[in-house]
Every structure is written in structure tokens, then in C-alpha cells.
């Protein structure tokens, strides 16, 4: 196990270097000269040249990348062209909102998805199963930015039960939770649908397996058969889907934050793309991608712990 963790950590480092290189190069190859963006429309040729020298933009690209990475390792992601603010600081202040949103959506997705999937499988071909299958397919197909807008229209504007947007209060307060409900449902629906489909199919497979029949033949109570024997085995592939979805939820927060005016990393990224603020784009993309691969690694490790049949050696 220790060997596996070390090996995977080393792979992770290589992957992170690769990701940072792709992100750095794509920003470097973008049209537009950062020095003229920083200098603004009134800057003279010599001002721009001075900015270029100052930022090291005249160095060879690999030197620039090495300098950038030296900063990244020390937690320095450069500074924004637009606000002149430190990118790391901007991200750190906004990241908690993104994380809260992703975790809340994950909870919504797992609770709805696993419950719907198991009930569907246990009542296969009943009207519950058919409607749950159709609803999950619709869940995958709903554009979440639209769902968010409609939820605001119904619950915030129409019924006035929940706030329209923002995430100003801490999540442990009632007001904070109220603010999180609609964004979490908006973001979690797609994942809930995917988890429901996966849970249904693995549960169907497991309840037909020999060991479940044997358990029933031994006279084990139906509840024990389902909850102890079947569920534990059915959940193994579901955990992978859940883990993968957490990464996608991190990516998905970008849109949800925009709909609900939540000040998170996603919104920061969109504003940065629109303003061609490359260091900000670079920093936020790097953070989300790094978290994504880290979560995947953790899921892989959990997977090998809960299922002894799986070995990466």
C-alpha cells in the first residue's frame, strides 16, 4: 500500500508538471501582448519595453516557465494584469465558496442518486423504476444554468422562500444554508442522475449474484441481504463515479457561481477570460485541475482499500 501511494504520488507530480506546462503554454501562445495590456492604451513604446523587461517577458519561454514554476512551488502565482492583485490571494479568498458549493452539491447528488438508484433496482420495471430512469436521463440533459435560473424564478421570485443569490453567510448558519440550497440542487442534479444510473445497474447485477442467492438460501433476512450483502458490493463502482463526479462538480461550479452570483474561483476565471487576464486564468485553471487529479488519486486509493480484489501491483 505504501509503495502504491508513493508511486502514485510520483505520477501525480509528473502529471501536475504536465498540466502546468499545458496551461502556461496556452496562455503564452495567446494573441495579445501582456505588457501592452498592463501598460494600458496610454503607454509609450519605451514604457511597454520597460514592463516587458521587468516581467521577464523577453526571456526564452522555457526560462519564463521555470520562473513561473519556482513561484508556484512557493505559493506565488503572479499578479493580475487587471487588478494588480496577487493571484494566490484572490484565489484563496474565493476558494472556500467554491469548495462549499462543490461539497453541498456532492451531498445532494449522493443522497438523491444512491437512493433513487437502489429503489429503482429493487423495484425493477415498476413505475418507480421507469420514472426514475426517465428523470435521470432528463437530469443529465438539463442545462444546469437554465435549471438554476428556473429555480430562482420559482423559489426566490415566486414563492420567496430562498435568497436569489450570493454566498455571503458561513454555511453553518441557517442563512448560509438557505443560500446554498438552490445552487447545490442546480449543480448536483446532473451528478445525481449519473450516480442513480450507476447505482441501479450495479445493484441489479449484484442482487442476481450467486452469493446473494446463497445468503437468501441460508435464510438470511431480506433486509440484511440487501443492506449488508448486496449494498456493500454494489457501492464499489459507485464510489468511483462519486469521486469522478466531485472533480466534475469542481469544474461545474464555474457556471453555477455565475448564475447565483457567488464569488468563487469559477466566477473569477470567467471574468479573467473576458478581460484576457492571463495570470489569473492560469492560476485558477491550475488550481482546479490540480484538485481534480488529487481527488482522482484519493478515489483510486479508497477503491483499492474497500475492494481487496483490486490491486494495482
Amino acid at each position, binding site marked *: 500500500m505504501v509503495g502504491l501511494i508513493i508511486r502514485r504520488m510520483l505520477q501525480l507530480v509528473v502529471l501536475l508538471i504536465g498540466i502546468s506546462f499545458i496551461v502556461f503554454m496556452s496562455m503564452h501562445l495567446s494573441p495579445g501582448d501582456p505588457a501592452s495590456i498592463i501598460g494600458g492604451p496610454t503607454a509609450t513604446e519605451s514604457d511597454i519595453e520597460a514592463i516587458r523587461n521587468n516581467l521577464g517577458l523577453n526571456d526564452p519561454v522555457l526560462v519564463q516557465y521555470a520562473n513561473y514554476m519556482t513561484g508556484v512551488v512557493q505559493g506565488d502565482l503572479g499578479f493580475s494584469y487587471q487588478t494588480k492583485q496577487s493571484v494566490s490571494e484572490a484565489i484563496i479568498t474565493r476558494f472556500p465558496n467554491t469548495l462549499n458549493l462543490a461539497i453541498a452539491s456532492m451531498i445532494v447528488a449522493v443522497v438523491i442518486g444512491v437512493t433513487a438508484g437502489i429503489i429503482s433496482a429493487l423495484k425493477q420495471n415498476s413505475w418507480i423504476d421507469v420514472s426514475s430512469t426517465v428523470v435521470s436521463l432528463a437530469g443529465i440533459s438539463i442545462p444546469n444554468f437554465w435549471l438554476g*435560473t428556473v429555480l430562482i424564478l420559482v423559489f426566490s421570485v415566486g414563492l420567496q422562500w430562498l435568497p436569489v443569490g450570493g454566498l455571503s453567510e458561513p454555511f453553518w448558519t441557517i442563512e448560509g444554508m438557505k443560500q446554498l440550497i438552490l445552487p447545490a440542487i442546480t449543480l448536483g442534479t446532473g451528478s445525481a442522475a449519473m450516480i442513480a444510473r450507476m447505482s441501479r445497474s450495479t445493484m441489479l447485477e449484484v442482487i442476481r449474484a450467486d452469493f446473494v442467492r446463497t445468503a437468501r438460501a441460508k435464510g438470511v433476512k431480506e433486509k440484511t441481504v440487501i443492506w449488508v450483502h448486496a449494498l456493500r458490493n454494489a457501492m464499489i463502482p459507485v464510489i468511483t463515479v462519486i469521486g469522478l463526479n466531485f472533480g466534475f462538480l469542481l469544474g461545474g461550479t464555474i457556471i453555477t457561481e455565475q448564475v447565483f452570483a457567488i464569488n468563487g474561483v469559477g466566477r473569477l476565471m470567467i471574468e479573467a477570460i473576458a478581460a484576457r487576464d492571463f495570470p489569473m486564468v492560469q492560476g485558477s485553471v491550475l488550481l482546479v485541475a490540480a484538485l481534480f487529479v488529487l481527488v482522482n488519486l484519493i478515489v483510486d486509493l479508497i477503491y483499492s482499500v474497500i475492494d481487496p480484489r483490486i490491486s494495482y501491483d
Partner: protein
Amino acid sequence: MPASEAVATQSKLGKQTEGKQKVIVVTLKKLLKNRLAVFGLFIIFIQILMAVFAPWITHYSPVTQSLVNSELPVGSENHWLGTDNYGRDMWSRIVFGARISLVVGLVSVILGLTGGIALGLISGYFRKLDGWIMRFVDLLFAFPGILLAMLIIAMLGTSLVNVMIAISIWSIPTCARIVRGSVLSVKKQEYIVAMKSLGAGNSRILIKHILPNCMAPIIVFATMRMATAILSTSALSFLGLGAQPPTPEWGAMIAAGQDYMWTSPHMTIVPGIAIMLVVFAFNVLGDGLRDALDPNMDLG
């Protein structure tokens, strides 16, 4: 070639085509038994009709403003789906939007498939290149969801064409992995070994003999990817990174409608339903195709 041999070859070729036709007929029969898939096909057929005949089935231009008629509700006289804040006919905008979403979906899926199939074939067939290509694919997989597309748009700038490029690049890694998986299982089969011993070149084996046998997962992937491409295009346009006003793109229409949510909710609701129906249609058709072709298909 003696005449008898030529006849034998011809009848063999005939049998092959017959076999292929049989597979298509069986698949179609299975597909048509799936009610959801038939519903999907029906919706897609309607979208294609709307896209092709857009100028003939609408009375108004999708972009010409008429401020006297602004924000008319659904069911208004002359504007059955109402109008938007600039008085543009919603039906015209939805119909022309169907054209945009279909074209963007098709172009980005075709481009993505071309890149993905090429990488997958090379990676699966040539062991020496496999490691390198798959590490590159892993690297692209490290970007969750729409993030890779956004990074590419950040690089290229915001426009609908760049959205197509971004979505096609985003499709490449998944497609490459699926194709590689199929190539690995197909290339061990005896007829490929036989082709090699007969002296067939690599490109001939790859394109004429391996690729056709990898088509089933590619078709399913392409159908499902249409759904993702249409959904992502509208999401990116909603964020202001894709189609720019006054283009009648469904996602951009929802973004514009947000400011009028209290007074004219139809500006948001109608394009949302359009996106959902079309994406649902491609998803259920993809599901149906997978069940008809091979339910145990591994889609990466």
C-alpha cells in the same frame, strides 16, 4: 484471374455486403423497439427539419428588432412564442437557434472524432507510440468537464467558431481511448494476422480492416457527444464565451432573458426547453444505440 475465381471473389464480396446490411437491419429493428430511442429520433428529425427549412417556416428575421412589439407573451397574435426585449420573434430565434446548435454540434463532433480516431488507431496499433500518446491523453483528462474548453477559449478568444474548436479538442481524449481499446481487441484477431502475412500495409490494415470493426462504440460515442457538444456550446454562450449578440444561440438567449425573468419568463424558459429536448434526444438515442449494438460496450 480465371473467370471462376473472379465469380467466387465477387460472390464473397456480395456475401460480405449482405452481412453488413443484415447487421444494420438487426440493429435498426432493435433500436425501433426502444420507445425512448424512437422519441429521441423523432426530436432530432424535427430539429433537422427546423434547421434546414428555417427561412421557410418563420415569418420574421431572428435578429431584426421591433421595439414596438417588445416582450410580447407566449400566445400573442402573430408571435405564438412571444417576443424578446428587442421585439424579436422568439419562434424565429428558436428555429434559427436549432440550426446553430446542430451545425456547432456536428462540426465539433466530426473534428473531435477525426482527431480522436487518428490518435486511437495509431496508439492501439503501434506499440512504440502507445505510451506517449496515452500519457498525452491522460494529461488532457486532467482537466475536469468544461475547463479544457474554457482554457482553449481563453487562448483563442471568444467566438462560436472557437467554441467548436474547443469542444472538438475536448472530445479527442475520450474518443482516442475508446478507439484504442477497440483496436487492441481487434488487432489480435486472426484475420488481421492473415492480412499481415499476405503483405498488406499498415495503413490499409488500419483503415480498411480495423476501423470498420471499431465503428460500434464510435457511433454510440458520437451520438452521446452531440448531446455534450450542444449542451456545452449553450453553456459557454450563456457565460458570454461563445456566440455573441444578436446571434440567436439558445444559451445566449437564456443569458439575455435572465434580466427579464420577472417580466418575461418565456425569454428564459423557451430556449431552455429547446436545449433540454435536443440534448435528451441525443442522450436517449445514444443509449438506445448502445443497447442495440452491444450492451456491454466499454465507453472508456
